[in-house]
């Protein structure tokens, strides 16, 4: 039940408790208790909207930075990851497999701003060996949502 609630919320963060109760064949009270617990346990971190900023006319520069670091004794990558993710410009940080170690996504008002941040803040952190910056030019799909979905309902209006 817990995971079913999470699935519904992941698809639509604004769904009401009443509707979830009907869809999952349970009571509003149970749903309320489950959601409350999930929030307390920080399984649900926050509720947000998936936004097509480009369409909203807001300029943004987003880059994904591959970061190579030398892990530290005892704390491994965690300490460096923390130094990086504390910056508000940083949207996400993940440990990745392969040639590089961390994947960091950074948002700024312009490409220059992002590039400066990488050069001045990220690359200069102790144990950061090298970085590789990829600017995002166009988004096709994010958080499971296709941005320009052309899949409309083409069915006949009445069929047997």
């Amino acid at each position, binding site marked *: 039940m817990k995971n079913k609630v999470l699935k519904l919320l992941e698809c639509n963060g604004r769904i009401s408790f009443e509707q979830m109760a009907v869809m999952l064949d349970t009571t509003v009270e149970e749903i309320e208790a489950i959601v409350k617990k999930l929030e307390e346990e920080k399984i649900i971190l926050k509720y947000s909207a998936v936004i097509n900023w480009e369409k909203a006319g807001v300029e943004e520069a987003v880059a994904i930075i591959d970061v190579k670091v030398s892990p530290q004794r005892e704390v491994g990558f965690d300490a460096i990851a923390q130094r990086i993710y504390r910056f508000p410009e940083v949207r996400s940080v993940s440990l990745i497999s392969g040639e590089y170690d961390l994947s960091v996504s950074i948002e700024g008002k312009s490409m220059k701003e992002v590039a400066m941040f990488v050069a001045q803040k990220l690359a200069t952190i102790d144990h950061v060996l090298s970085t590789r910056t990829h600017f995002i030019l166009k988004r096709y799909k994010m958080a499971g949502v296709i941005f320009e979905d052309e*899949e409309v309902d083409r069915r006949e*209006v009445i*069929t*047997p």
Partner: protein
Amino acid sequence: MTFHPEDFINPLVRDLPPSGIRKFFDLVSEMKDVISLGVGEPDFISPWHVREACVYSLEKGYTMYTSNFGLPELRYEIAKYLDQRFGVPYNDQKEIIVTVGASEAVDMALRTICGPGDEVIIPEPCYVSYKPCVRLTGAEPVAVPTYFKDEFKLTPEILESYITPKTKAIVLSYPNNPTGAVLTREELAAISKVIIKYNLVVVSDEIYGELTYEGTHTCIAGLPEMRDRTILISGMSKAFAMTGWRIGYVAAHEDFIKNMVKIHQYTMLCAPIMGQKAAIEAFRSCHHEVSRMVEEYDQRRRIVYKRMKDMGLEVFKPQGAFYIFPSVKNTGLSSEEFAQKLLKEEKVAVVPGNAFADCGEGFIRCSYATSVKQLIQAMDRMERFLSKQFSS
């Protein structure tokens, strides 16, 4: 002498009534901003895996005929699926034909077993094609009504009362279109006793089998002494959201299959290879997608059922397919009047129950193969419509 094409029409065809749905279709098509709950197919588009596999097969040049029976790999997947999913084993070489939709399989099965002088039992309300297909064989369809009080399940007592010495076969279609009724294993077992007692063949259209919401679907062919006398029909259309591909299949005793394939080879040759290639991929990699779709239908089913009950419609909770079949008798309107008025006043399209049988009069079929957002909007409109009916 002037030539009148009408004079040359085979009376069997001439006397077939046109589909009751057609009239309504024309009415709805003329209107804008209608929310249609009249659609008998999934709102999901075929899984991308399936579409991509078809594109790949075209690039590879798979554009030829296949064996009359269908691609061996596909028959293998069908046999594996029927066995693992529903516990009914069939030999993929000798007991399965890939058909052009379940539609072709229904026609072929009936033509293979029936002819003039035979009677075929058809529990109603039901899918619109069974009666005409029986008529075209020259046999006589015998409509057996089912009732709201039984949640539109066929009961052994009613069945037995319609059997005559001429009865040769019965068409079973559960989960049911348009009622959403399902027969449990015990209920099927009780019916199979009657079928065995009178030595009938069963044509079982189980195209909605995967769309069973409480418990799992039982194939009647899996019950004692039923396998050899059952022609099991299903297809990709509903469970895999693949209506336009036109791929169905029939599984039955070798002696049925070897005769059915004669009709298939002379009239159809084979099912389209593009659809067959896509179906192979569907069986191999889309079970996850199927469960996701089934879960979503189930959630919509609960929403619609609750809303309808709350707005004062007499309705039972459907157990399968993606239809709900409420009674509109307490509005004082006939099925058709209700559907037309609802369409005109609130722009919601439903199908009048009498399009599926005389005993469907007083009911409407609403499909919940539509997004939750649209469904809720449709329910709001229907509620407003009903409160006007009840207050006037």
